[in-house]
């Protein structure tokens, strides 16, 4: 004759292997007891798991029983799915970020005019990285979206506000124009 503990151990193995909830009938059949006894065992087992040093618990769902993790460990479990991604923005992303930082709020059309190339993927990447965000719409025809930098942007670059951006003397860009190599 199996002790209650023996039965509980069997049930742990069975519920683990099943993954999905196992109906009470099935459990009763497996351990060779009637449904009433099985239910009593399950209730007691559920209580024990809940109140002992276990990462998992027994849960009753729709007249069936299932093992699952205790909710308080969610944050640790979440780390399992966390994929560490190497930092670093592409050259395109830096350019788009620089244009937005110095001209915000700004439309995609403006960015693309300055860069001379399509900038959709760089913009989505920067949004995904939470370095820029949408900032309403321009009054121009078609009411294009405007983009601006975020608090995360300030944090990453160590600015307290947008006013902290390094100053660019207009002549720096002007000079560029004047120093054009005469080809």
């Amino acid at each position, binding site marked *: 004759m199996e002790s209650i503990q023996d039965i509980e151990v069997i049930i742990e193995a069975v519920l*683990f292997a099943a993954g999905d909830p196992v109906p009470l009938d099935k459990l009763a059949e497996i351990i060779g007891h009637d449904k009433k006894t099985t239910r009593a065992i399950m209730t007691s087992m559920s209580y024990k798991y809940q109140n002992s040093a276990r990462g998992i618990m027994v849960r009753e769902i729709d007249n069936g029983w299932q093992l699952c993790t205790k909710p308080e460990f969610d944050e640790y479990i979440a780390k399992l799915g966390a994929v560490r991604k190497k930092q670093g923005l592409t050259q395109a992303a830096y350019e788009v*970020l620089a244009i937005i930082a110095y001209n915000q709020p700004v439309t995609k059309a403006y960015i693309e005019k300055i860069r001379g190339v399509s900038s959709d993927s760089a913009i989505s990447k920067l949004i995904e990285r939470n370095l820029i965000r949408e900032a309403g719409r321009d009054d121009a025809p078609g009411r294009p979206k405007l983009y601006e930098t975020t608090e995360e942007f300030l944090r*990453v670059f160590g600015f307290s506000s947008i006013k902290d951006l390094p100053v*660019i003397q207009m002549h720096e*860009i002007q000079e560029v124009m004047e120093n054009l190599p005469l080809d």
Partner: protein
Amino acid sequence: MKSALTNACTIKLNNFEGPFDLLFYLIEKNKIDIYDIPILEITEQYMEYLDAMQQLDLEIASEFLVMAATLLHIKSRLLLPSKEVTEEEAADPREELILQLVEYKKYKEFSQYLKEREAKWERVHYKLPEPLPQIAFYEELEVSPEVLRDCFVKVMKNYKDRTNDVSRKMDRILNREKVSLRAKVKELLEVLSRGIKICFSKIYNTAVKSRLEVATGFLALLEIVKLGRAKVEQHETFGEIYVFPDGTDDEKVIQ
């Protein structure tokens, strides 16, 4: 004997993995010490097996025949010791075969052990992973603000370059028809007629004129010099070219 043997092996015949496997079966069946194989007996039994296989119309793999030849060779060497025995031949002719059999036995035993472990671990069950959200988190971005600034200056520079380039290309296209040597000679003579010394680059340079105009202007200058309507001076290579109309003095230079 033969028919009994034939019967015995009909069941196992197809199961032999190769000549070593068959030899092993014979060794175990005869309770022979693997390190001291009675070659005569074993060879005989081995050949009987092959014979039985043939009688049953079973295809005999070439490896079995190679082993048969090896066994017969060893047998002949044991039976007919050469009078002139070299050192190499003095070794037991069974040695190589025994080494191979021992090596094979090792893995055969281990494969048995694998089967037992598999049987045990087959009884172990796993659980499917819970659906976990894949969260990508980024390592800290470390960029100096200057990088952003430099990047912006570069982008703007490229932009100006590009737009400049575009407008100059446009000018060139528009000016193409206007540029002729005759027109430039006329233009230069008009300037020179004021009777003052001029710097060539003040009139013709690519910042204000197209390359074609500058080049044509230079050709026009050469033409005028050839006609004796002006003199030129250049103090160093690639230096400024000064153009003097005949009879002007140095003071009156266009700025």
